[in-house]
C-alpha cells in the first residue's frame, strides 16, 4: 500500500451490502477528484460487490490487497 498516498480511509468491516457501498459512495462525494480513499472490506459479498459498484460510478480501483486475516484493503481513486 505504501506506493499510494491515502487521503482518507473507511473501515467497513462488519458492514453489510449494500450499506458498505453506500458509505463508500458518500465518502467519495465529499472528496476531491484525484483523491485516494482506502476502504477495508470483508471477504465474500463485500469484496465481490463494492469494487464493482465503485467502478460502475466511474472511479478507479488502484489496488486490492489482503493484509492479514479475513478482510481486504482497496484503494480507490476518485474520478
Amino acid at each position, binding site marked *: 500500500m505504501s506506493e499510494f498516498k491515502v487521503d482518507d480511509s473507511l473501515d467497513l468491516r462488519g458492514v453489510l451490502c*449494500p450499506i458498505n457501498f*453506500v*458509505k463508500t*459512495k*458518500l465518502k467519495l*462525494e*465529499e472528496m476531491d477528484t484525484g483523491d485516494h480513499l482506502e476502504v477495508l472490506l470483508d471477504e465474500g459479498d463485500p469484496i465481490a460487490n463494492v469494487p464493482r459498484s465503485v467502478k460502475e460510478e466511474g472511479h478507479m480501483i488502484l489496488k486490492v490487497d489482503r493484509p492479514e486475516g479475513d478482510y481486504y484493503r482497496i484503494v480507490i481513486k476518485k474520478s
Partner: protein
Amino acid sequence: MPYSEDWIERYSRHIILSEVGGGGQQKIGNAKVLVLGVGGLGSPVALYLAAAGVGTLGIVDNDVVDLSNLQRQVLHTTPDIGRPKVESAAEKLQAINPDMTIKPYRELVTSANIMDIFKDYDIVVDGTDNFPTRFLVNDACVMAGKSLVHGAILRFDGQAFTVIPHEGPCYRCIFREPPPPGAVPNCSQAGILGAVAGIIGTIQATEVLKLILGKGKLLTGRLLILDALDMSFRETRIRKDPDCPICGQNPTITELTDYEWVC
C-alpha cells in the same frame, strides 16, 4: 460523515443510484412540494414523495373521507371515514417519514387563496378532479413561475404532463378553455378503475423527483396518455402556443378567475 446512520440506511436505495447519491438525496430533503388533492392521484403521489424523503409536503383538500373513496384513495382507511382527508393523510405520511414537515390545508383552492398557498412551494402537483380547479392551478403556476405536474384519470384512461412555465407549453397550450358545464362526466358519474389512479399518480411522483434532481427527460412538451384496457401508452407532442392566453406572447388572462363549478 455528516449523515446519520438512519438517514444512510433509510435512503440507501436512492443513494446507490448514480443519478441521486448523497447530494441528490439532500436536494430531495430540501424540496418543498405542494400536492393538490389527496384522493385517487394525490394518495400515491404523497405516499411516494413522503417515502422518498421530500422535506416539506403541503397537502390541500377540503373533503372528508367517504366510503366510496376507499376503492382507489389508498392513503385512507375504513376507520378514517368521516375524517378530513388532510388529517387522515397527514397521519399516514408522518408515520412513513417522521422527519418530514407536512402542512395540511383543509380548504378549496380558489383565485382568492391560491397564490398565498403556492408561495412557499417550488413544485405543484395537480391531483384535483375537476376542470375549473385544473385551469386555475395551471394559470396560477404560470403566473407564479411554479413547476406543475399534471395528472388526470377517467375510467381506464389517464394522462400526465409537466409544465415548466415559459420554458415549455402549459396546460392551456393544449386545452384552451374548460369544457362547458355538463359536457364531460367526472369520476363519480363515469367511474374509475382504482389502480389506474395508482399508475398515473406514481408517474406524477416520479416527475416530481426528476424535477428535484434535475435528471432525465421530463414530460414537458409531450402529453403521456394511458389506455389501461389496452395497457398501452402513447405520447402527443405539444408545442408552446404563442397565442396561449396565459403563457403566450400577449397574454389575455392577467388575473385569476374561478370557472363555474360543474360537478
